[in-house]
C-alpha cells in the first residue's frame, strides 16, 4: 500500500538527496574546475572556485608528455577483458553454489570474500616472481589475468546473490523438458539473470578501470592503463595539481560517461532481489 507523504517531507528528502549527491560529486567537480586553472591558481592558498585564467594548456601538456590514447586502449582491453573472463568463470561457479550447494559452499564463499580483505602488498613479491617467470610483466594479457583474479570473488558473490532469487522450479522444469546443463545455464538461467549479470559486468568494469596498485606495479611502459597514466603526473617537488587534474579528468571521463548512460541498468541490478 502506498504511503501518504506530505509535500514538506518530499521537499525535505529531495533537498537531502541533492545535498548528498553534491557532496559525492564535489571531488569530481573540483577536479573538473582545477583542470582549467593555471598551476599557480590551482595551488593558491586562497582557492578560487571558477578558473580566473581559463586555460587548456594542461590538457596539451598532458598529451605532450604521455600517450593518453595508448593508456585508454589498455584500460578498455583490461577492464572489459577481465570482466568477460570473470563472467565465463563466475557464471558456472555461481550456478553450482546457488543450485547445487554442498556442505562447504558457504565456507568457500566466505573464503573467497576473505581474499578481498588481504592487503595486496602482502602477495606482491610472489605474484611479481610468477609474472616474471611466465613473462607476463608489462603485458595486457597478464594484467587482464590478475584483474580477473582480483575481481572474481565479487563476480561470484554478486551472481550467486542474483541466482538465488531465481526459482529453482524453473530450472527443474527445463531439466524435465530434457535441457542439458549447458542449455539450462545458457538458455534458461542467463536470460532470467540478465539485469544481475549486466550490473555485475558494469561494476567490475569500473573496479578494473580504477585499480591502481597492480596496474602500476606490474607494468612499465607498454601495458600501462589510465591509472598508471595519472600517477605519472603527481610530484612531491613542484607544481602539478592542474596537470594532475587534467590527467584525472581524461582518465575518468570514459567510465563516468559509461556509468551515466547505464545508471538505470546499474541501479536495477544492484537493487535486484532487495525486495521480495
Amino acid at each position, binding site marked *: 500500500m502506498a504511503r501518504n507523504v506530505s509535500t514538506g517531507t518530499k521537499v525535505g528528502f529531495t533537498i537531502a538527496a541533492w545535498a548528498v549527491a553534491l557532496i559525492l560529486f564535489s571531488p569530481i567537480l573540483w577536479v573538473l574546475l582545477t583542470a582549467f586553472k593555471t598551476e599557480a591558481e590551482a595551488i593558491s592558498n586562497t582557492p578560487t572556485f571558477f578558473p580566473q585564467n581559463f586555460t587548456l594548456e594542461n590538457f596539451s601538456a598532458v598529451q605532450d608528455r604521455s600517450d593518453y590514447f595508448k593508456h585508454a586502449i589498455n584500460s578498455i582491453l583490461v577492464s572489459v577483458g577481465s570482466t568477460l573472463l570473470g563472467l565465463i568463470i563466475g557464471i558456472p561457479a555461481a550456478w553450482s553454489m546457488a543450485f547445487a550447494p554442498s556442505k562447504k559452499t558457504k565456507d568457500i564463499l566466505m573464503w573467497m570474500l576473505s581474499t578481498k580483505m588481504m592487503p595486496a602488498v602482502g602477495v*606482491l613479491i610472489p605474484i611479481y616472481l610468477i609474472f616474471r617467470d611466465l613473462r607476463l610483466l608489462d603485458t595486457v594479457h597478464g594484467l587482464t589475468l590478475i584483474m580477473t583474479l582480483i575481481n572474481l570473488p565479487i563476480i561470484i558473490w554478486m551472481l550467486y546473490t542474483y541466482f538465488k532469487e531465481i526459482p529453482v522450479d524453473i530450472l527443474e522444469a527445463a531439466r524435465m523438458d530434457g535441457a542439458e546443463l549447458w542449455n539450462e545455464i545458457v538458455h534458461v538461467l542467463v536470460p532470467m539473470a540478465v539485469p544481475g549479470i549486466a550490473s555485475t559486468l558494469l561494476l567490475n568494469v569500473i573496479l578494473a578501470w580504477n585499480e591502481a596498485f597492480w596496474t602500476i606495479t606490474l607494468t612499465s611502459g607498454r601495458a600501462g592503463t589510465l591509472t598508471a597514466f595519472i600517477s605519472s603526473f603527481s610530484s*612531491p617537488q613542484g607544481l602539478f595539481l592542474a596537470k594532475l587534474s587534467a590527467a584525472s579528468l581524461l582518465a575518468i571521463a570514459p567510465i563516468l560517461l559509461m556509468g551515466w548512460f547505464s545508471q538505470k541498468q546499474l541501479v536495477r541490478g544492484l537493487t535486484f532481489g532487495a525486495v521480495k
Partner: protein
Amino acid sequence: MKLTPILVGAFTLALAASASAQTLTIATVNNGDMIRMQGLSSAFTEETGIELNWVVLEENTLRQNVTTDIATNGGQYDVMTIGTYEAPIWAKQGWLKPLDGLAADAEYDVDDLLPPIRDGLSYEGKLYAAPFYGESSFIMYRTDLMEKAGLTMPEAPTWEFIGEAARAMTDRDADINGICLRGKAGWGENMAFLTAMSNSFGARWFDENWQPQFNTPEWKSTLDTYLSLMADAGPTGASSNGFNENLTLFQQGKCGMWIDATVAASFVTNPADSTVADKVGFALAPDTGLGKRGNWLWAWSLAIPNSSQNAEAAEQFINWATSKDYLALVAEKEGWANVPPGTRISLYENPDYQAAAPFAEMTMGSIYAADPSQPSVKPVPYVGVQFVAIPEFAGIATNVGQLFSAALAGQMSADDALAQAQDATLRDMTRAGYIK
C-alpha cells in the same frame, strides 16, 4: 599463390625490424628536470637509433616499483632513477652494474662530477649511478622583511640568529610567518630536514655500536629548538606541510625564511609563479658553531640494474643524459637557468650559468658543506647526511617522523616523542640484527 614463403618473409622482416630497433625502458621521477630530458631525448634517439620507453612515476611509487623490480631481478627496466640513499645499498647488494665505461671515458670526464655527489653514488670506490641533478638545502629568505626587521642575514648564519630573525619577521596580523619548515611525517619529509638539522647540533642517529641516540642532549636540543621556533614563528598546521606546501606559502609572501632544497631557488625566483621573485636572498644552512651545517645532500641519478638485457645501450644513454653536452643542449634550447644543477664542477665555473642562476654559488657551497661519510660532529657507523644508508632506515625514520610530527602538532611533548623514538628505533635495530 603460395602463402608460406610470404609468411616466412614477413616473419623474417618483423624479426629483423625488432632486432634493429633497440628499446630502453627508463623509470624516472616526475620532476621538472626529468620531464625536460624526456622532451629532449629525441636527440639521443636520432644520434644512436635507440628508442626510449619512458615510465614516469611519482617519487614514492617509483621507489616501490624499482625496488620490487630490482629485488626480484624482474628486468622491467634498463635504466632506473635512484637517489643517494639507494645507490650504496643496492651496489652493496650487487643489484647494480658499475658504470666503468663512464669512468674510463675521457670525454665524459668523471672527475668533473662534484666530489660529494660522486662519493655518495659510489661503493668501494666504484661509481654505480651517474648524477642527473644534485641538490643540497639552504636558507631562502625575504630580503625586504629582513631589512624591515633591522637585521642582516650573514652568509653562514647560526641557529641562534635564525631564531632571532624568524621571531622578528613574524607578523601574525599580516599573516607572515618568520620561518617555514617541513613538518609532514616521512623519512624523506620532516626527517630529511630534522636529521640534517640534528647534525649541526652534534646529534647523530646511532653511535659506533649502532645504539640509537635519541636519548642524548643533542637530540633534545635539536627538537626543542625546532618546536619552539615553529611555535613562535611557524605557520599554522605546519605538521602537514612538506616541500610543496611551503613552496606555495613562500611564493605567496607568507614566509620570511624557508630552509629547504636548493632546487626550490629557481621556483621562488621565477616571476611567473612567485609574488616575491625579486625579494629573495640565499644563505647557507645554519650551524651552532660545532663545524657541521644543517644542510643535506641528494642527487637523482641514473643506474643500470643487473637484470637489464640492454646494459651497453643503457650506459650509452646515461652517458648522454649526464654529460657536459647534455647541459649545453638544455642551455641552447631552454636557457642556462634551466640546466639541471648540482652535478658538475664545470657548470659552476661557467660565467653564463653564474649570470643566469644567482643562487649558483650558494648551491655549490651548500653541496660542498655536506659530507656523507662524516655527517655529524661525532663519529658514526653509517653513510648519509639526511638519512642513514641502511635498508631499514626508511621504515624506522618514517615511524620517528610520525612522532616528531605529532609533537609539532601538539599531540605529545618533545620528551615523549624522543623517548618513544628511542624505544622504537632500539627495538627495530635489535630485530634487524645490528644490536646483539
